């Protein structure tokens, strides 16, 4: 278990980007995720089997959170594939974040190929109960 690295960069718009994305997409596996919310935060759990901590890249680009990971498994030399469910070696999935989340305080943990992302909400935006007075 360890914190994964984070990178943040500003949005750069280039003309070629959409084309690039489309060709890339065929090469990526889409990790399955669970997403849930409680009073203080949103949690994203993603299955990234075969991705080690240093092959994991999590980026927040503007409002977009992107999870990317490279599958590294040792294979003996001269191995021929007999059967393959997994035909690509990279995982990628993106999510649009909303403003009440604190981008700088997102934390990540990797355990047995399972990524846990913790996205805390801004303290001032956390819900507080409205008291209803009864006359």
């Amino acid at each position: 278990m360890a914190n994964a690295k984070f990178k943040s960069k500003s949005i750069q718009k280039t003309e070629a980007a959409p084309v690039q994305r489309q060709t890339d997409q065929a090469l990526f596996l889409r990790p399955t995720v669970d997403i849930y919310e409680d009073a203080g935060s949103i949690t994203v759990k993603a299955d990234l089997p075969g991705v080690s901590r240093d092959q994991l890249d999590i980026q927040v680009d503007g409002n977009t959170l992107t999870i990317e990971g490279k599958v590294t498994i040792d294979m003996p030399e001269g191995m021929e594939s007999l059967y393959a469910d997994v035909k690509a070696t990279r995982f990628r999935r993106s999510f649009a974040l909303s403003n009440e989340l604190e981008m700088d305080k997102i934390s990540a943990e990797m355990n047995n190929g399972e990524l846990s992302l913790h996205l805390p909400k801004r303290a001032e935006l956390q819900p507080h109960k409205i008291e209803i007075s009864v006359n």
Partner: protein
Amino acid sequence: MLGFSTGFDRDLFDQFETMRRQMDDIFGDLSGPLGIRSVAAGSYPAINIGASPKQVDVYVFAAGVDPQCLDSSLQQNLLTVSGERQIELPEGAQAYRRERFNGRFKRVITLPEDVDPDKVNAAYHDGVLHICVQRKEELQPRRIEVK
């Protein structure tokens, strides 16, 4: 569209793959009959099998499983992998997506017939169970020297 959302769907490419499978279902599989123990595409866990002259390697992509809940056995050339994955949602949390597999699983895989059931080792690392079975030596191809 029919199909399952578990496992590794790959957007565009996967849609073609799903379409191809559906065509197979309707018009019959041109690549021959299905394995009796084969499972539907996208079942958890995904499995890759590779073979080299000396060994057969099986990779089971089972993320987030407690290694103690994983069980694998080899009977002749029949490999069984089973386990249990328990995903618990914290109390009071609101779930938006629950795509990940939760529960018990079991897969039975037929390996090439020349594997040696006594020479197996298995390791679970980064959510991948890697089972390596040696092939019987007497059956390995031998180089014939030409004099």
